[in-house]
């Protein structure tokens, strides 16, 4: 196998192992649109990263965090529903990102590679970020697991029981922002949410505990990466979208299995 393909596999699997478990919380907490909004803002992060001359993943994560902060502040106003706010922020930041990238005169930015990913161009440096950062994200998720799960069941109850709700929420946002930054190279900003929620939705069918669902989502995501890259290599398909389509195919397959948990 070629080197670039091995690096692509390693990068994709690394991202999937992180996105699966985190994506379970996105599904359980019904935050898919929030994930979308954060990832759409990533392009703005890239542009600002270029201007500031800092690591692009770091820039994307920082912009994501700032956006999450803005959202929390705007939610306090209680004048607009959350999905309206998300729609507003999501498309405003995406447009700002597109404009900012167009205005960048010193660097020529390959827009398509950021929008849809450029997994075949994953470098050794990227791999270091993905696996190192991914390990940190997973460790932090394990640490936050219990309070996050309690909050997901009932935020009021968690508060009464003394769970540090605000700190846990901020921690979760940080993990989301970091994961989006790590996944950007693999599937691109427009497709990141798919990697978060499709494996989780797929795993739901087979899991009886939250932990098993998280583990299965990681494995299913890794399978989707392998399948997508394989198809991309053989049939010369764009890699990022091929990974997402492979995940969707796995989801459809999972629906053929008998339902274990009847609602």
């Amino acid at each position, binding site marked *: 196998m070629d080197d670039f393909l091995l690096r692509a596999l390693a990068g994709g699997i690394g991202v999937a192992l992180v996105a699966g478990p985190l994506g379970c919380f996105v599904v359980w907490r019904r935050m898919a649109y929030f994930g979308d909004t954060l990832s759409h803002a990533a392009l703005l992060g890239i542009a600002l990263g270029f201007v500031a001359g800092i690591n692009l993943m770091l820039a994307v994560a920082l912009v994501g965090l700032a956006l999450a902060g803005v959202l929390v502040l705007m939610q306090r106003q209680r004048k607009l529903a959350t999905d309206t706010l998300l729609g507003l922020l999501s498309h405003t930041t995406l447009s700002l990102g597109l404009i900012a990238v167009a205005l960048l005169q010193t660097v020529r930015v390959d827009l398509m590679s950021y929008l849809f990913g450029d997994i075949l161009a994953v470098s050794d440096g990227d791999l270091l970020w993905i696996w190192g950062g991914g390990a940190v994200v997973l460790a932090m998720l394990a640490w936050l697991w219990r309070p996050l799960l309690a909050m997901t069941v009932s935020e009021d109850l968690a508060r009464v*029981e003394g769970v540090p709700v605000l700190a846990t929420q901020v921690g979760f946002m940080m993990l989301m922002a970091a994961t989006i930054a790590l996944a950007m190279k693999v599937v691109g900003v427009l497709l990141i949410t798919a990697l978060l929620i499709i494996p989780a939705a797929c795993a739901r069918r087979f*899991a009886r505990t*939250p932990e098993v669902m998280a583990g299965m989502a990681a494995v299913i995501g890794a399978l989707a990466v392998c399948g997508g890259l394989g198809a991309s290599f053989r049939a010369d398909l764009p890699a990022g979208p091929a990974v997402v389509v492979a995940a969707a195919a796995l989801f459809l397959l999972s629906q053929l299995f008998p339902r274990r948990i009847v609602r």
Partner: protein
Amino acid sequence: MLSTEPLIKTTGLTVQFGRRTVLQSVDLAVTAGEVVTLVGPNGAGKSTLLRSVLGLQRPTGGTVWRKAGLRVGYMPQRLAVDATLPLTVRRLLALWGPVTPEAVEATLGEVGAAALADSPVQSLSGGEVQRVMLARALLRRPDLLVLDEPAQAVDVAGQATLYALIDAIRRRHGCGVLMVSHDLSYAISGTDRLVCLNGHVCCAGRPEDVRRHPDFQALFGVDPLAMPAWLSSAGPHSHGTTPPGCQHTHAPSDAKDPHPHG
């Protein structure tokens, strides 16, 4: 038998949302072993008062005092767990702190939900959810149980059993109970103190006294002469009598009348 020191006490508690005053100078105390029931029309601030006591709502004015080290067992109005979260009752009960499997079994048995231990929480009926949430609160060994409309999602037949269960638990564990109730007939019978709320405390005291209070009658349209059996009986059963709370003898607008006494 009852200790005189309250478990929780609010003094002059005032809560405003924007320019709207939801609670106005509310004084409320609950002592150990005592059942205090909040009743009042929609928008009377019952839930807001509960949330303030729980520390979920910051008061605009006044204070909420809690006994040092007070353990509160809160039972929310409903539980909204997404269908995608694989969670059994057993796991739900273990989410809030260390519990032994024996304690889980025993507590589920106490609330009559032993058979539900391995059911997904999303598959439970309204009444089953309330039993499980009661078990959850009890597992925390609370000094004070706080219940927000415990019977709201429960069918009529289940309501009496649920209130009887709450009463039995209070006697067995000696904890104080603070609850909001919509439904006068069952709630009042096991109550030591009834607090009638309408933005402020209209009247409060033993249920048999409060029901004669003009403010209470103005709010609920209860004619005291027509309603003895269900209130004075010790048990939660109404012996087939219709709760007379629905016989409106006063216009609801009377509710805003000033107090006849200080």
